[in-house]
């Protein structure tokens, strides 16, 4: 029996078709199923497929996006836009909503290397902007999801943690001016864009509406659609192109002279965290993170068998139980000399030893920092399309260390039961802005979530992590409410009362800016009345 699902009223379909043209709208089920399928769905709804949408549209311009949103308002049709769609927050919906696929809006409008601003449309990926920026001596942030993720959603709509946070800052702090189609179909141009002055700031006049656009977490589509963003860039001191040799899947990148890859192993969690703290104070890092040894192995091997062999047959896991992945960058040889001296001294101070990376290892660390190209291998290849990140927290390194300890303790139990990968401590820790605004931690757990019993165990793990994190006053729930785990209840209902009832204010914002409640808010919030 073929699955029958909700379709659009022909009048609504026609109204949307009038906006985008017949070739840019469809209600073909075979195509629609591609818009409700994404990794992570299994954990949410026990099915790789979420709810099939009634249609999908492909706008080609801001005017078309605005027109679509107005149609949605007119007919009460919920919508959610996405870029590359590489997240359940982009794709999963428990009820039929209209996905707005922004693939056709894919221009890098300008890279202003002097003022270090890139103006991009929603489908521009991190990888594309990295490549184009290098030629001009600039680079963008690199999000944890990696190079295929969109630049705009990574800094406006979900989180913002990535490999370069220590030197670029948290991605959520990087949008400057924004062209924003609000849920009611009006266009808001933030900051200097609103007066026609340019793209250089998103704040003002007076209060900054960037505070409505997103918080620590983005609105995941629940506050409309960002059609152009001026993104703050950082300097790139390397060559305009990177030399790559070898062949897939093990490309070897030539680490440029302006970058130094240092992997250091520490004897304890205390030591590695102190080393990170002090490296932050020195402000010498291009990329700085603690990554689990298994993730490091996965990123540098060409197959799971090779990963397994390396885990079993070498001491890599033990030697890198507390491994620091540090990359330095420098605009001159003398600067590099200084930075290297500082880094090595700190490592020595905290009893760290430099781990002698193979060319494959060094390349893997560089590629991961440079454009996040190791993310898929490191996270998804091992267990095939599953990754769970819990617990998470973003605050001081001292707090993050406690969360790390808590999470690892919980995970060890589940690993011993065989419910998830027994891979030592897989927690990823990365500071923001040389530690000045804290650090992020996230424990990436790999398991065979295709097995219902394992899925259930992982849900219990996540719940246990979340509950303990809040109970101990460490942090809010996963990504501050963005990663919803209960289909029947918003995370905000549990988190809000712990945090001065922020959810009440958040709901008022939603109601004010989306009076018809058409910007789908499954991963955001809905007003109570």
């Amino acid at each position, binding site marked *: 029996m073929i699955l029958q699902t909700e379709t659009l009223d022909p009048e609504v379909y026609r109204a949307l078709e009038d906006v985008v043209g017949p070739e840019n709208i469809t209600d073909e089920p075979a195509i629609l199923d591609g818009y409700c399928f994404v990794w992570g769905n299994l954990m949410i709804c026990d099915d790789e497929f979420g709810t099939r949408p009634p249609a999908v549209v492909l706008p080609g311009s801001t005017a078309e996006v605005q027109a679509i949103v107005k149609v949605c308002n007119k007919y009460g049709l919920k919508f959610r836009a996405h870029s590359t769609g590489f997240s359940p927050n982009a794709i999963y919906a428990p009820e039929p909503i209209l996905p707005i696929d922004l693939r056709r809006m894919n221009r890098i409008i300008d890279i202003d290397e002097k003022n270090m601003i890139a103006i991009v449309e929603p489908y521009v990926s991190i990888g594309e902007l990295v490549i184009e920026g290098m030629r001009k001596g600039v680079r963008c942030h690199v999000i944890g999801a*990696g190079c295929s993720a969109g630049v705009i959603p990574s800094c406006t709509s979900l989180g913002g943690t990535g490999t370069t946070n220590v030197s670029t800052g948290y991605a959520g702090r990087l949008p400057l001016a924004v062209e924003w189609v609000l849920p009611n179909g009006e266009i808001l141009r933030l900051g200097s864009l609103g007066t026609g002055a340019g793209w250089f700031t998103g704040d003002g006049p007076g209060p900054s509406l960037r505070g409505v656009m997103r918080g620590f977490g983005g609105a995941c589509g629940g506050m409309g659609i960002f059609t152009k963003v001026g993104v703050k860039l950082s300097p790139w001191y390397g060559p305009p192109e990177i030399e790559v040799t070898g062949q897939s899947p093990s490309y070897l990148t030539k680490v440029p002279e302006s970058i130094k890859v240092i992997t250091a192993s520490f004897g304890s969690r205390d030591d590695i965290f102190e080393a990170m703290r002090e490296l932050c104070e020195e402000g010498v890092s291009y990329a700085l993170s603690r990554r689990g040894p298994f993730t490091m192995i996965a990123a540098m091997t060409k197959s799971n068998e090779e990963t397994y062999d390396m885990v079993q047959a070498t001491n890599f896991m033990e030697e890198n139980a507390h491994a620091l992945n540090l990359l330095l960058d420098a605009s001159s040889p003398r600067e590099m000399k200084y930075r290297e001296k500082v880094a090595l001294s700190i490592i020595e101070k905290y009893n760290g030893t430099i781990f002698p990376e193979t060319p494959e290892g060094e390349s893997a660390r560089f590629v991961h920092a440079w454009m996040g190209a190791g993310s898929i291998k490191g996270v998804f290849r091992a267990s095939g*399309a599953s990754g769970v990140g819990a617990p998470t927290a973003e605050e001081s390194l001292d707090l993050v260390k406690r969360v790390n300890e808590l999470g690892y303790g919980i995970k060890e139990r589940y690993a011993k039961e065989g419910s998830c990968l027994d891979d030592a401590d897989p927690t990823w820790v990365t500071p923001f802005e040389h530690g000045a605004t804290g650090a992020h931690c996230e424990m990436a757990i790999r398991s065979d979530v295709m097995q219902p019993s394992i899925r259930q165990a992982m849900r219990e793990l996540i719940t246990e992590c979340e509950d303990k994190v809040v109970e101990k006053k460490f942090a809010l729930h996963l990504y501050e409410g963005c990663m919803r785990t209960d289909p029947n209840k918003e995370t905000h209902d549990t988190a809000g009362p712990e945090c001065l009832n922020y959810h009440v204010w958040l709901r008022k914002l939603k109601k004010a800016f989306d009076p018809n409640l058409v910007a789908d808010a499954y991963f955001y919030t809905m007003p109570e009345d």
Partner: protein
Amino acid sequence: MSLKDYELDMRGCTRCSYCKVIPHVITKHKEFSTVCPSIAKYNFHGYSGGGKLIAGLALLRGRIDYSDKFLDMIYQCQMCGACDVSCKNVRDMEPYEVLLELRTKCVEDGQLVPAHMLVIDGLKKEDNMMLEKKAGRGNWAEGLNVKDLTKDKAEVLFHAGCRYSFDEGLWPVARTAVKLLQRAGVDIGIMGSQETCCGGRAYEMGYQGELTKYADHNTDNWKAAGVKTVVTACADCYQAFKVLYDKIGKKPEVEILHITEYLDRLIRAGTMKLTKEVPMAVTYHDPCHLGRLAEPWINWNGTRRYTMGGLYIWEPPREFRRGANGVYDPPRDIIKSIPGIKFVEMDRIKEYAWCCGAGGGVIEAYPEFAAWAAAERIKEAKATGAEALVTACPWCARNFKDAVAETGDKIKIYDITELVEQAI
């Protein structure tokens, strides 16, 4: 194999979109980063490799049924394999095999593309994919004074292929190929009007039976003819003989070479000397069937199991074909050995070459899409500053030639053999 055998691959797609682009680490320009013509033209996610994997799973689960639009989505795809090699840069999956099984299932279930039905009908009757009469198959070789292997014996068989046999505009290339080999003293013959299709293109359209039929027929004929080597100037045929026949358990006992491999050998051995200057800036297009799809087949039989609580491994260990071992160096070496040539590479090369647009039944059923893809490649060729785009496959050549005729572009389209001829 069947679609069901690839269920884990389909379920394992993360929707990362790597299948749409060349690996980011080797991308040089955003403009030339997309690798999948289908998604580039049609934009809906379903047109990408990953999108078709999802559709395959949906079909398997009874979520969707066949429809015209569904068939369009499956068949508006050159089966170029780019999504497959891009995905395999980071995952151990077989997207290409899923796409193939989807087509096979369509055919088995009687869901046929009318244009393909026509061509396959012609194939069954006349043993070629060109809707031509088989009697005329050998006409391209008139006056060549080459051995007829239905009557004679030779060490080497030159297999023209359907496109070269019946596309008069491309006859000079096939003729040049034979003449070059003859001049080098190769003991060469052809099957003439007795030559038949390789079965490769039909296989890609989902007609697996045709491949099996022609595999048996061709390998029997080669045995009967006593040849030791089969050389072809058609990339499709090369891939069919070298890879597909092995895949279906009918690996030929003869050596299979593409003309570029043969010429490269002759040049290295000093038997063929390229001495005349050909002052031209050229760029080279890697045909899919000579490049990523021509990587030797890996026969593997095993299982997947989970270890360490969350890591799956293959037993026995499994090698994946990621496209890097196609025929890339011989054509380049030939070009570089031509005096006076200035060789410039495009961004998307070797296993990440942008498809010319002709494969997978697209030129037959969706000629506009084929033309569009060719035009995109020509844009990339022009961006290098080259005066000529050189290739090594008649399907690529035909599609490029038609595209430049349409657009009025000045860039010349050559087969490698034509350049070699100019250099002798």
